[in-house]
């Protein structure tokens, strides 16, 4: 996994609540057996005016210029600012794959759906939960200032605003360590191989029907 320590980047506001994983990456793209290449189809139904299918040349498709992702001022954004319950719906990891492939490394919102939140950490994306007041303030600052950037410092758990103001955020220590060091979960778990074997043996002894 790509390590994540500090991200300094443009912020794109997606002013909607309950953005579901079907919206993040529609089902037809889930037929791929790869874990890369989903970026051009991120938010496909909002982003393009036609119906996207796998294998299409996306550069020739008609674009919805009203959708925030297509606005020139947000090109190259690395930080996504959004509303409540982002990532609700299916467990498809294609959602964080598409976000990461597009270039987003940090998502800031008041709340996230559980499975999506978890999937982000497995893919080098940092989801940050902030209180409603800070999120609201960020929305207005992003809207009012073209080129609005934030500096997200994961080791210090701080978001630095252009005006010098800092917002601190919380993150699970274990997940933070994995992100900062780009650690592979499976490798970590397999360090406890003997404990798992012992547990498994006891479990089968006590529950012989399993």
């Amino acid at each position, binding site marked *: 996994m790509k390590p994540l320590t500090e991200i300094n980047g443009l912020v794109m506001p997606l002013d909607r609540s309950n953005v*579901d994983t079907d919206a993040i990456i529609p089902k037809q793209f889930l*037929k791929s*057996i790869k874990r890369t290449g989903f970026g051009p189809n991120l938010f496909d139904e909002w982003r393009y005016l036609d119906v996207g299918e796998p294998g299409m040349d996306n550069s020739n498709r008609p674009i919805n210029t009203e959708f925030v992702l297509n606005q020139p001022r947000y090109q190259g954004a690395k930080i996504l600012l959004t509303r409540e319950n982002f990532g609700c719906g299916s467990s498809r990891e294609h959602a964080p794959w598409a976000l990461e492939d597009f270039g987003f490394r940090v998502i800031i919102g008041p709340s996230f759906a559980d499975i999506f939140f978890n*999937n982000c950490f*497995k893919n080098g994306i940092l989801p940050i939960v902030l209180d409603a007041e800070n999120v609201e303030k960020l929305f207005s600052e992003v809207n009012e200032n073209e080129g609005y950037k934030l500096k997200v410092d994961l080791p210090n758990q701080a978001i630095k605003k252009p005006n010098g103001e800092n917002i601190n955020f919380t993150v699970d220590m*274990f997940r933070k360590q994995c992100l900062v060091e780009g650690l592979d979960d499976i490798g970590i778990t397999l360090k*406890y191989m003997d404990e798992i074997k012992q547990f498994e043996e006891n479990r089968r002894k006590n529950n012989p029907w399993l």
Partner: protein
Amino acid sequence: MTAKTLYDKLWDSHVVRQDENGTALLYIDRQLIHEVTSPQAFEGLRLAGRKPWRVSANKATADHNVPTTGLENGISDPIARLQVETLDKNCKEFEIEEFGMGDIRQGIVHVVGPEQGITLPGMTVVCGDSHTSTHGAFAALAQGIGTSEVEHALATQCLLQKKSKNMLVEVNGSLPIGVSAKDLALAIIGKIGTAGGTGCAIEFAGEAISGLSVEGRMTLCNMAIEAGARSGLVAVDEKTIDYFNGRPFAPSGDNWELATQAWGNLHSDKGAVFDKHVILNASEIKPQVTWGTSPEMVVSINESIPDPDQETNPVKQEGMLSALKYMDLAKNTLISEIRIDKVFIGSCTNSRIEDLRVAANIVKGETVAKSVKLALVVPGSGLVKSQAEKEGLDKIFIKSGFEWRDPGCSMCLAMNADRLESGERCASTSNRNFEGRQGNGGRTHLVSPAMAAAAAVAGHFIDITDFYK
């Protein structure tokens, strides 16, 4: 000893180790695998030179991409075909048992698991699909996971996670005739919202839950994820135990005795403490119909579409306006005035035999309205299909003008050829009414099987409780 919730018991009995932070290694008894979320996990194993930790813990079936008609011709979409073939190939290579296309046991993974006794009470069950919460109906700790975790569970038989909070949804009284587990699920989501259960495992309890069949409990737990909860749970009772007796992968003989004895403890202790507690009265619940693009946008059949002007939260108001625009509906419209183009009876929420019986009973001797372009019945598994055919349900549906299909996820998420065209409106027994879920530009109204069947005949939504009067 401290009183424990059902979730506490399931969690505690599966913790291999826990660090000072609370991050635990949770042992996984069972993993169910399907074609969409597994290819990258198997590829990961191969790249790292790893093997499944315990091969027999894993069972697979293809469901999301499979066609529901013309099975003899295989899958015509080459990309979908490759994905299903990749599952076959991976299962063969890693020696995982698979119920492939053409096997009567094939079907929607959440129907197949319990049907085969692959899911059992007290187990931890994972699957790369959010509706894995379904299996919680049997007091199994069942959770949907992403592909990285599919690989993690394959390689280590564990997941790394922190314990969730305990939430109790207590449903007192009994559901009126014609009001089903689906209506209850939608009413709960309407009350607590799609993030109401975020960070929690929801246990459903109370008189109304005891009164539900195990299939009804599966419908309810299936929708726990639509309330934000990764897991739904119902305690074990006689019905649970009866359900597993004689199932192919369920224990038998002495092991059956041992198992049922242990399962009897799978309930929350008296006095167990929940972090959140919600109470509903079942007798007040009416058939539910969603009007928007989130399952929480739901009202009773006798109500009208809410007025966004009455909503004080600006973000919610914006969501309502955007949903009404997408759904092409006006505020204050009576739900019973909404006309539909298609009907879908199926999905991991409502494709089991009881669902089909209820729907068939309603359409028997009736005809699908002329204005309805397509009415589909898609059984949840080959075995559900075969049982329905033994009971003659297929003939009832076909005679009424429904299409009787082969098992799969079908129009719930439209990964195969079954879908809504842009602008079409569907009465659907599935679980999500998100934009584009059933096809780009398609408009979904989530309902129970009885409500979908009645809407197929009437051409618009009607109150099914009138049918039973």
